[in-house]
């Protein structure tokens, strides 16, 4: 269970939001909505402990995330705007190396199966810079399927994806929620997923 109380965020001179409370329990997901520049990404970065809030506190299972540190990071997966995908490496290398950086060895057959599931069959050994924007997103999102994490924090996960990939990603999130997972995501699209809460910034 992730809870946040009294969060506020200041960027330069501007106060993006203040006194923000939120709670996401097992099987629930939070849809963060707002105009461009409303502070959606800033909120997600605060929840992911990438930047500290100006005021307020984020708690995971009742404990402050600053105290939990590594335990929280192990339970959480954050995928941001940037790819975190290396252009010079192949999708297969990207997936296995990012799994190893998370401290989990990834079997090559599992990695290949996952990439095939994400529609990258036949492109496993092609440097990512030769792939299209949507395919690069798919390489990134493949991490969702191999990294075990209770909480997913996804910033605009549907950007650049085609209809089929959007369906598949929605299915993946639905499965994650059904298994008791939690998700927080920003998107300008409406999503037909159960147990959703909307947070308007």
């Amino acid at each position, binding site marked *: 269970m992730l809870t946040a109380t009294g969060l506020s965020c200041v960027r330069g001179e501007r106060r993006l939001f203040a006194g923000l409370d939120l709670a996401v329990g097992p099987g629930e997901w939070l849809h963060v909505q707002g105009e461009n520049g409303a502070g959606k990404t800033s909120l997600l970065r605060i929840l*992911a*402990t*990438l*930047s*500290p809030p100006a005021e307020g506190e984020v708690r995971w299972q009742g404990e402050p995330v600053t105290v939990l540190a*590594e335990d929280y*990071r*192990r339970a*959480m997966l*954050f995928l*941001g*705007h*940037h*790819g*975190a*995908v*290396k*252009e*010079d*490496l192949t999708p297969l*290398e990207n997936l296995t*190396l*990012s799994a*190893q*950086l*998370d*401290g989990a*060895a990834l079997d090559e057959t599992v990695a290949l199966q996952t990439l095939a599931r994400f529609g990258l069959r036949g492109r496993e050994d092609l*440097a990512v810079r030769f792939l299209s924007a949507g395919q690069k997103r798919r390489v990134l999102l493949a991490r969702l399927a191999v990294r075990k994490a209770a909480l997913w924090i996804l910033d605009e996960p549907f950007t650049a994806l085609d209809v089929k990939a959007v369906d598949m990603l929605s299915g993946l999130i639905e499965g994650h929620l059904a298994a008791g997972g939690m998700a927080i995501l920003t998107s300008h699209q409406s999503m037909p997923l159960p147990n959703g809460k909307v947070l308007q910034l």
Partner: protein
Amino acid sequence: MSAVLAIIRRDLLLAMRRKSEVLTALFFFIIVASLFPLGIGPESALLRTIAPGVIWVSALLATMLGLARLFAPDHADGTLEQMVLSPTPLGLLVTGKIAAHWITTGLPLVLLAPVLGIQFDLDVGALGVLVVALLLGTPLLSLIGAIGAALTLGVRGGGVLVSLLVLPLYVPALIFGAGAVESHISGLGAGGHLSLLAALLALAVFFAPWATTAALRISLE
């Protein structure tokens, strides 16, 4: 620990895919160190005197060239964020990155130095001391350089700033590294200088990853 090996492997793989960046620093080292004997002429006594200093200064400048690439690409594509969020402590991952930087830029310099030393008419003993001094000194250059690279991350004109920050910090390495070869040539023995260089390295191995990590966290906020 496996995460550290993974990051070293990843950075070496990336260096292999972009050979030109590694080779640029290496050719820079070779050319700068070769220009001096050509410019000064075949006075072997003078060449022997300037050899340690010239080779060390070339090594400092060649190491500087690669520093901008140490964290900037990872910062640009979001990999650095994922490193911060990794369950493995950031300090260990940073140590892995510095190790990979040394393998791609420092180690080739150590291996090439004896060949370049021949141009300066250094004898076998002096070449040996030069290699040992560089073997102790180049990891030190990578470790100190990483602090500068992390501090100037995301700063406009960071390339120039990193030289201004890091080159003064390289002075002790230069003095003891070049001094080791000089004192060997003059018959005093290189032991003292090499011990001090090793002490500096031990200190940097302990503190530099910690300082780099702190600097990276600041530039990511």
